[in-house]
């Protein structure tokens, strides 16, 4: 199997302060690498480095010719996206943005690629639907299709199942495994232990350094793997519970603040315009409550 991505003794960090040291691993074409680690262990720093957004402080990250065009990326969902008025088709097509370059519109080939990826993920019939009306699992499929438009060689998934209900989580894991079987290399960052079941390789990073890299079987047999699986969760379902509840609190708060910002801006201008801004403000507020 061809090696696609090699990290040789890489140290990562910001402004001269190292976050993780001694990262040493290889991703070959067709692999399914699961990156485990607690919060603050430098997982997001590693993602940025793999995407090529920050350089390695020491060591080197080698990318094969095959993936020099970039990595397909499935980022964590942001608050902005939750109520974004865009059709599924528009979002999937935006995955072709690099191929289109500075051309103002997408070409026929790029549109066809978007259609192909939508049918690959079984969301063709959703193409005209609005993104904000979809379920969490459907939204992740849309974003996966978009990532596949960027490249079908290698995907980097950042906590893809966060916020989904257990059933949708299972579906998404199966879908990702299917894509992997059809030849897409997967790198998945997760703190959900059930992700381990689907992976072919495991990279476990601790608070300052790499703790383990190897095949899944070796990991399960290692002391680290055993202790991680037992102490972290005990069982799969609990892990899922943890994942969702940990992610939940910050989101409503953020959307609350920004919704208020928008409503207040609207109301502020309204008061000055005709003195009936207060009525609008109340109206907007009520509308939002209804929407929720």
């Amino acid at each position, binding site marked *: 199997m061809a090696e696609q991505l090699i990290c040789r003794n890489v140290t990562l960090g910001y402004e001269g302060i190292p976050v993780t040291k001694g990262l040493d691993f290889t991703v070959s074409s067709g692999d399914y690498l699961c990156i485990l680690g607690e919060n603050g262990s430098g997982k997001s720093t590693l993602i940025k480095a793999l*995407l090529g*957004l920050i350089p390695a402080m020491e060591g080197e990250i080698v990318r094969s010719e095959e993936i020099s065009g*970039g*990595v397909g*990326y499935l*980022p964590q969902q*942001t*608050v*902005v*996206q939750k109520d*974004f*008025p*865009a*059709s599924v*088709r*528009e*979002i999937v097509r*935006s*995955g072709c*943005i*690099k191929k*289109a370059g*500075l051309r*103002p*519109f*997408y070409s026929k080939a790029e549109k066809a690629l978007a259609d192909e990826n939508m049918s690959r993920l079984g969301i063709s019939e959703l193409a005209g*639907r*609005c993104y904000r*009306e979809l379920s969490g699992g459907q939204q992740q499929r849309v*974003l996966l299709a*978009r*990532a596949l438009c*960027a490249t079908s060689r290698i995907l*980097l998934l950042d906590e893809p199942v966060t916020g989904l209900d257990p059933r949708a989580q299972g579906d998404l894991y199966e879908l990702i495994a299917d894509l992997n079987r059809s030849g897409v290399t997967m790198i998945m960052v997760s703190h959900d232990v059930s992700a381990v079941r689907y992976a072919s390789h495991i990279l476990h990073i601790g608070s300052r350094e790499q703790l383990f890299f190897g095949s899944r079987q070796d990991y399960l047999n290692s002391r680290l793997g055993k202790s991680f699986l037992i102490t972290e969760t005990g069982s799969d379902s609990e892990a899922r519970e943890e994942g969702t509840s940990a992610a939940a609190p910050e989101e409503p708060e*953020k959307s609350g*603040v*920004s919704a208020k*910002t*928008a409503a*207040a*801006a*609207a109301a*502020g*201008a*309204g008061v*000055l*315009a*005709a003195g*009936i801004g207060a009525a*609008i403000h109340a*109206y907007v507020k009520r*509308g939002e409550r209804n929407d929720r």
Partner: protein
Amino acid sequence: MIDKILYYFEFPLVRYAFIVGLLIALCSSLLGVSLVLKRFSFIGDGLSHVAFGAMSVATVTDVTVKQVASGDNAFARWLTDVIEKTNSMVIVLPITLVAAILLLRTGQNSKIKGDAALAMISVGSLAAGYMLINMFSASANISGDVCSTLFGSTSILTLSLSEVWLSVGLAAVVIGVFLIFYKQIFAVTFDESFAQATGVKANAYNLLIAVITALIVVLAMSLVGSLLISALIIFPALSAMRLFKSFKGVIICSAVISVVCAGSGLIASILFSTPVGSTIVTADMAAFFIFTILSKILRRS
């Protein structure tokens, strides 16, 4: 009534006001969608306060330079002449641009800091601007000057031909940039990290959005005044988002709403001699109500 409108349209000043008004409405609504979705609704408000501060600096320097150059030689006369011709745009535009860039920069990393910075800068420049005008202005009607800067008053109806061309040029730049970079603006608005990961220079496009916003704010000051600018930016976008479900649909609808409201607002303000800015904003609010009710009805059926 039609006769009356046609009668007014015989005056070039009214035609200028229409051209500039509709262009500004178009530009602000295009960008408004992106700003509202990126949670930057208040940026227009903050920037307009900065522009007000800059405007008072311009007025004050205008006055003091004129006093210094009140001698009776050719140089002094030339200097006064130049100041009158270049008007305040030279000072207001760069200051607002710098503020826009600074604000959008801080807003990226930490939400709260960006919020606080925005509030600080906007209130601070409002206070400083009013103070400067009060201390140094030679005008007999200070509160009248301030009021017309804040609420636009009738300055839209006193545009000169060169100002019209300047507005047309700036509007063309804004619309052109928006059409050319439509894909990138969509990508950066929807998902900055994905855009960055696929090699789109997200920061550069954020900067571009900041610069265009500043341009629009400075342009729109003469139309609705600095306090009501954010209404032009957010109302059409919010109304369009009630009904439409694709980004393109929202953008087109928001542009149409904005242009129609600006046009009807201008006509109404001429017919009933109401203040231009607040009439347009009232029209925008009416549109928002109509669209909200429409979306409720459509959802139920």
